[in-house]
């Protein structure tokens, strides 16, 4: 195809642009999450993450003090600056720019800065762009009015979300629980499957073909079927909902793929080496440990990555086989059942929690992509 594209400069450009658009489409949602996790809470709810690098109009309110009022020709006047409010001073250390203001909470940006407007209960008010305001009332005010205004706020990035998620929201516990589920659930099936795969690939015994067909068949059994009978079984034999239970479950569910992948790989190892070792008097156990395991490292690594990602990302098995209390919640359950309910509107927290939960898989993915691809190819391309 490149012969043709090479002749046709326009086609080349078109291909580049199409791929660029597709990559952006695939990447943007994740970038949005990443950017949002670093944004200030007020900024998230007032401008989209794509506007994160720009200043944003945020709403503020200030209560005008009445003690500075003076009388001028029958009118009471209060003057001041909204940015002088001690509660807002930290937000605007060098003053700010008011773009709009209002006198009612429901419409904080009703009037443009500099335009005079009527005050409820008589009188007029104006806020200028530099924040200075002037209130004129026919009678002396006993209670200062509350002024609402919109001001440009510079982009603000913060680690506060991470602080909340990691140290206050129980996500640290969930992170450790996820690790506790994941690591044994990755290593144990590899060990078991490697021995079985060796037997299926290099040992002669009756019924071998049938067993391989059975493994291929079990590859697609939906694990929904296993939930009820196995939870029942776990309860009956005293394991119940526990870490031990979920390790066993993950081991069982991961085994078909593990045996299948590893057997496919081991069958392709050179026959000479194995037979040579047998002639030299090595036992099957020795051959397995000294020759097969080291040679199968790429396949073991690919399956390890699969199983790791799968157990780390799993929600269903964790929901069923682990108790639902905070002490044993894994991150996916924590996010789906806990945070989405209790902090459904707190986008900063949600984004951060999601990012914390996908950070480790992403790291594994980008550092070990080669093995992952190799494993996928071994499992699917025939």
């Amino acid at each position: 195809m490149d012969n043709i594209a090479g002749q046709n400069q326009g086609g080349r450009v078109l291909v580049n642009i199409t791929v660029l658009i597709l990559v952006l489409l695939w990447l943007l949602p994740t970038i949005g999450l990443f950017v949002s996790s670093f944004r200030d809470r007020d900024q998230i709810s007032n401008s989209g993450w794509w506007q994160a690098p720009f200043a944003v109009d945020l709403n503020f309110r200030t209560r005008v003090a009445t003690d500075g009022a003076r009388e001028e020709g029958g009118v009471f006047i209060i003057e001041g600056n909204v940015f002088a409010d001690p509660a807002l001073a930290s937000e605007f250390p060098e003053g700010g720019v008011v773009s709009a203001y209002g006198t009612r909470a429901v419409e904080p940006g009703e009037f443009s800065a500099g335009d005079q407007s009527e005050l409820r209960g008589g009188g007029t008010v104006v806020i200028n762009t530099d924040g200075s305001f002037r209130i004129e009332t026919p009678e002396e005010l006993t209670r200062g009015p509350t002024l609402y205004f919109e001001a440009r706020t510079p982009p603000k990035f913060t680690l506060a979300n991470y602080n909340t998620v990691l140290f206050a929201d129980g996500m640290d516990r969930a992170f450790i629980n996820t690790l506790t589920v994941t690591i044994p659930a990755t290593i144990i099936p590899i060990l078991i499957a490697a021995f079985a795969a060796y037997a299926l690939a290099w040992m002669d015994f009756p019924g071998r073909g049938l067993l391989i067909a059975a493994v291929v068949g079990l590859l697609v059994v939906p694990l929904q079927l296993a939930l009820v009978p196995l939870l029942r079984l776990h309860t009956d034999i005293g394991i119940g909902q526990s870490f031990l239970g979920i390790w066993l479950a993950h081991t069982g569910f991961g085994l078909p793929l593990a045996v299948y992948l590893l057997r496919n790989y081991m069958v392709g190892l050179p026959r000479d080496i194995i037979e040579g070792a047998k002639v030299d008097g090595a036992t099957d156990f020795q051959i397995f440990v000294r020759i097969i395991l080291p040679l199968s490292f790429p396949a073991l690594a690919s399956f390890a990555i699969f199983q790791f990602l799968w157990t780390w990302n799993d929600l269903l098995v964790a929901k069923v086989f682990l108790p639902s209390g905070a002490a044993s919640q894994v991150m996916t359950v924590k996010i789906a059942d806990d945070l989405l309910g209790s902090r459904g509107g707190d986008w900063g927290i949600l984004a951060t929690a999601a990012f914390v939960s996908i950070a480790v898989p992403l790291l594994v993915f980008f550092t070990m992509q080669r093995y992952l691809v190799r494993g996928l190819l071994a499992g699917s391309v025939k």
Partner: protein
Amino acid sequence: MPPVLQGILTILIGVGGCVGYFYFSNLVLDKVIFPAKGPQAGRNINRANQVRPWLFLFPAMFALGLYLAYPVVGSFWRSLFDRSGANFIGLGNYIDLFSESSFRTAVFNNLLWVLFVPAAATFFGLLIAQLTDRLSWGNIAKSLIFMPMAISFVGASLIWKFVYSANPDIGIINAIRTSIGLVALDPLQVRFWNNFFLMFILVWIQTGFAMVILSAALRGIPEETVEAAIIDGANPFQVFFKIKVPQIIGTIVVVWTTITILTLKVFDIVYTMTGGNFGTHILPSYMMTYMFRDDGRATAVAFVIMILVLPVMIWNIRQARKEMR
């Protein structure tokens, strides 16, 4: 005991137990039951070698049998009983389910998922594999599109919750809608189409998988066939559809069926995004509404999923047997 320590200890016990089983069972077999010494050394070695495959296979077979084979039967059996598990009601659960309109919606939606997700993921995967094939930055592009594979369904759902948010200051879709003068709406509450918005999340995840495999298959096509077609005056589309696609059709089928199977299992997306509201239930999420409440119904739904998977399972076994010959 702090949880970290507890975790490490259990890891050591679990892994140690596994290694220990294989090591000591082989040791016992070789040294105690059939020792390779004394007058019957030769016979003992042969006998030990007959037993050893089963020693190697036992844990895997046991776990597979218990965790995957037994549940097929166990679930079916349980689905024939009522909620309490004491009364045999035959196909009662199935009949009740099919009379529920929400179940029929779930079946219908699930069929939509099974048709749309594998088709779209394979299409995008093939498209991207072909387009990036000779691109100088093709590998980077592929790596980035492959990335969602590593993200959990829950994480992906959250990512897309941001995209789909009804608030134009959070959801980019509604931001675009409002900027061109349309009213903001919640895409997830648009009946019927909301299913497709959910499906797209899975397409987003699975396209990378399809792309990686199809890209390798495309590279495996003999160069001569493509060159010959070009010399004969085929345009790029003809080369792609008439020369390349027919040669990788086997791989396309494998990718398609693999994604189909996955699609039938994914419950996380619906659960996290809509909880099955607004007519978006699919069978796996529908099953979870009965899980912990009515085991009879839950297993019946699970068995319906199994029936949907069955054709692919049979096809897979046939293919595997063909290859072994």
